[in-house]
């Protein structure tokens, strides 16, 4: 079929074969567990077909956690290879090592960080604005399944065929058909493109939700900080992701149909790819970081038991970052030979972003000032971020100086810098959010002891893994080296590998934390709905919230809406009314399946299957639209019963 044949199975190296076995084995194990426990029906009706933003949010985060594991194994393999491969070939052949660094970046950005933040926004944002769901609940499910379809293609590349070796940025002409024939780059293109479409739709959905679904009385300047960052991040998704869709589509046309957008010859212009890619790529950094900033703002205020310092300033800083993020993309390729005027202009623009970012850090600092700080695990992640992020910001400003970038670009210094931004800046925030909102989602708290252990391993592991890479950048080590023959590099790389092992222990702690907490869920139960003495609306409802979130849509008159409610006497509740909610739908998962099949078919040039799955996708869309928007009604009596059980 197409160019698919038995050679696609991963018998080319034992490492790749093991990876494929683990992937297939893991998948089979999950299926077996579901069948054994008889969860099939529950999984389908309660989860896969749901349009409830809370369940979709949880599914996003589960996806993110699974992909985090896969992406981290890639990282560990690279660290191990570089720790060994001094003057020898190490244990990974180049064509395999190259796949690993490509998949590590792709997974961590597109299939770990993106689902994680989309999941958090999905779960928390509607609750924080006092809404019953997002504006387009069905579209939300479609977005999720598009992301999942991309992730499936990504994992499939481990078993059938190979993944791209062109790095997560996929620069042509290397990623073109002439230099990278075969399916690797196509796997990258289609998994990124399909999930990117899901992200664009999510962005549209979130912006609409925040603009139209806020509780009565909640003005824009009374939205919780997390909602603000979600809004800015979503606006960036809407404007930035189409650039990625277009550029990957152009590359696909080059590769599959012999176009010449980015080829060396025939009028192709490889520099244009860098332009288009980073026009998405730089705002993407802020798409990842802004929601984490939102989490930090919530956490620092709640656990300092104090109002957020400089809210107005924070809002303006967030908006400024969002706008400026579109003006700096060229700093990713100062070394492409632009004139000094162009490089200097983009260098200065980049530094200007440091101003609002700095303001935010100071505002968190002054929120802690004269507070009553409870050092919980979410607060630890936040403080770990505040201490570490400054270092990354500093090295970022260094790289923003074009003349300095000429020596630091493409070295491990750059690798250390962007991990220094994204690990504390995004991932620590996601973990803080995960531990902070977990009791809301499941009705019991996560073990604090194991949460703190996880933090300390991640925190020390991060420093051990990435500080040596800064030094190695000064020592002239390029990124993406599969082996090397400079003996003085090796101690640093061994130390970095040791750091990666510490992070592994951190991940194990996260696993144990979940296990222990589920085991002790009765002891850890949150019966109040407000385990942290929260300040925003999500804590006003029960843990976990009922399907309809709020029996009465709350009336808001302050930034810390729930804190204010707690301070004022409760009025007698109004009588309950019937609540209408969108009904679950089988179309979204089916569309996800069709999209995954379409991607697979195009990657392997199985054109009849591609046509068929595309037709199915269109047919499903039409069918869904002609069947209308089905609803379920929860009657007032039932609402009264659920709410009665709460108190």
């Amino acid at each position, binding site marked *: 079929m197409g160019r698919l044949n038995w050679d696609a199975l991963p018998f080319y190296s034992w490492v790749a074969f093991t990876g494929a076995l683990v992937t297939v084995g893991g998948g089979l194990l999950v299926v077996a567990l579901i069948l054994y426990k008889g969860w099939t029906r529950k999984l389908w009706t309660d989860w896969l077909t749901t349009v409830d933003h809370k369940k979709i949010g949880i599914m996003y985060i589960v996806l993110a956690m699974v992909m985090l594991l896969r992406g981290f194994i890639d990282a560990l393999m690279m660290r191990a290879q570089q720790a060994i491969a001094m003057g020898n070939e190490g244990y990974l052949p180049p064509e395999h090592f190259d796949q690993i660094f490509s998949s590590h970046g792709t997974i961590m950005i597109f299939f770990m960080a993106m689902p994680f933040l989309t999941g958090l926004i999905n779960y928390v944002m509607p609750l924080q604005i006092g809404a019953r769901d997002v504006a387009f609940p069905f579209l939300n499910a479609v977005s999720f399944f598009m992301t999942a379809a991309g992730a499936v293609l990504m994992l499939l590349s481990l078993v059938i065929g190979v993944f791209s070796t062109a790095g997560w940025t996929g620069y042509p*002409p290397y990623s073109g058909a002439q230099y990278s024939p*075969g399916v690797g780059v196509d796997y990258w293109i289609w998994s990124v493109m399909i999930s990117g479409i899901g992200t664009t739709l999510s962005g549209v959905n979130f912006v609409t939700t925040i603009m139209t679904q806020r509780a009565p009385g909640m003005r824009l300047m009374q939205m919780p900080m997390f909602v603000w960052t979600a809004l800015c991040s979503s606006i960036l998704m809407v404007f930035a992701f189409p650039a990625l869709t277009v550029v990957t589509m152009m590359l696909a046309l080059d590769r599959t*149909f012999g176009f010449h957008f980015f080829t060396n010859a025939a009028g192709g212009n490889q520099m244009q790819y860098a332009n288009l890619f980073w026009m998405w790529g730089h705002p993407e950094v802020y798409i990842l970081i802004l929601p984490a900033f939102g989490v930090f703002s919530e956490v620092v205020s709640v656990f300092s*038991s104090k109002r957020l310092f400089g809210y107005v300033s924070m809002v303006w800083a967030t908006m400024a970052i969002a706008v400026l993020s579109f003006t700096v993309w060229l700093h990713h390729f100062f070394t*492409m030979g632009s004139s000094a005027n162009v490089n200097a202009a983009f260098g200065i623009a980049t530094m200007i972003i440091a101003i609002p970012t700095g*303001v935010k850090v100071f505002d968190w600092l002054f929120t802690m*000032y004269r507070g009553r700080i409870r050092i919980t695990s979410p607060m630890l992640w936040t403080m770990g971020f505040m201490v570490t992020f400054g270092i990354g910001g500093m090295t970022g400003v260094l790289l923003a100086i074009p003349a*300095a970038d000429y020596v630091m670009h493409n070295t491990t210094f750059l690798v250390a810098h962007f991990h220094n931004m994204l690990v504390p800046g995004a991932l620590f925030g996601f973990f803080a959010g995960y531990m902070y909102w977990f009791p809301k989602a499941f009705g019991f708290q996560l073990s604090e002891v194991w949460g703190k252990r996880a933090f300390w391993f991640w925190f020390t592991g991060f420093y051990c893994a990435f500080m040596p890479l800064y*030094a190695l950048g000064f020592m*002239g080590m390029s990124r993406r080296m599969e082996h090397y023959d400079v003996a003085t590099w090796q101690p640093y790389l061994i130390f970095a590998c040791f750091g990666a092992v510490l992070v592994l222990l951190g991940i194990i702690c996260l696993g144990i934390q979940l296990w222990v907490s589920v085991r002790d869920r009765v002891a850890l139960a949150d019966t109040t709905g407000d385990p942290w003495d929260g300040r925003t609306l999500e804590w006003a409802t029960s843990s976990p919230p009922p399907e309809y979130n709020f029996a009465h849509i709350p009336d808001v008159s302050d930034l810390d809406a729930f804190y204010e409610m707690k301070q004022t006497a409760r009025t007698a509740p109004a009588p309950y009314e019937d609540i209408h909610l969108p009904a679950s739908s089988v179309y979204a998962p089916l569309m996800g399946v069709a999209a995954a099949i379409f991607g697979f078919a195009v990657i392997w040039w199985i054109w009849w299957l591609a046509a068929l799955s595309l037709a199915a996708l269109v047919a499903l869309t039409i069918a869904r639209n002609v069947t209308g928007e089905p609803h379920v009604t929860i009657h007032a009596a039932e609402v009264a019963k659920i709410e009665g059980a709460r108190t």
Partner: protein
Amino acid sequence: MRNRTLAFAKRSASWALGFSFTLLSGCSFLSSPVIDAKGPVAIAQRDLMFTALGMMLVLVIPVIVLTIVFAVKYRADKGAKYTPMWDNSHLIETICWTVPAILVVILGVMVWNSTHALDPYKPLASDQEPLRVDVISLDWKYLFLYPDQDIGAVNELVFPVNRPLELHMTSGTVMTALMIPTLGGQIYAMGGMETELNLMAHEEGSFMGRNTMFSGDGFSAMSFEARSVSDTAFDAWVAAAKSQGSELDMARFQELAKPTQDVAPEVYADIPDTLFKTVIYNLGGASMGMADPNAHTNMGAMPGDGEGVSAQDTSAYETDGVAPPDAQGTATAPATQSAAPHSPDTTD
């Protein structure tokens, strides 16, 4: 519980610190290429970096210290002053916005000046004429052409100390980036385009140069030795290349352009005048552009002939470099082009 966690944290932190200091003291960080720079460009780049770093530390260190101080001082069980409703101070806000802004203004001026002063295209100040070397990056080696000396070398760049080195670069394959960290860096080399990099060494020595831009299976070993030598030693090296080197004709070049790894340095006594231009104009297509270079003599000014022509100015020759359409293979199977493929997709 808290004590256990804290004790554990302290233990792991002190262990990590201890280990890293032992590591740093026993190694060669201070003699690393970027720190121990040997040329005016690299020294200026390094000094710029450390000046900027010092300025930023003024802001970053207080943040780190204050985070820790506040976390300790205002812990709930300490009973320090508590102002739950205090959420604004115009004075603090003003400082928060203006101090970073002032820093950025200062850095911005620095950026503007240094970017112009250290523009890689800018000829370096010297009383000597620059030595021109044309660089062609191939899979996975560098070919250095000395047009004025009419010699060439693979994976070996020899040049006189204290004389500006004017590198004109292109790629006979994918995008690469040439850097000699001890002397400064780095500019991309791209197929069909010419970029430029000016460097100079003011000490004799042997430095590592390499491609920093991932370019395929042989990328890790795509490095070369850059040697700055005395004028007499350079003349001797040129003379030796002329007497001992073989001639680099088009056939040999095509052979050289095929993907190979760990290529030993080799010199060529005689190089085609038009080789560098031919690669720029004819790259791509199936034939690696070995068409008759004379066919292109009417194409007007070369990019890079004028001052400050950057890689962005490709419009002049983009259309001229078009390969015959049939050279790109058929639409459905571009992978079957006859050009040497980079690497087989799955290897044996």
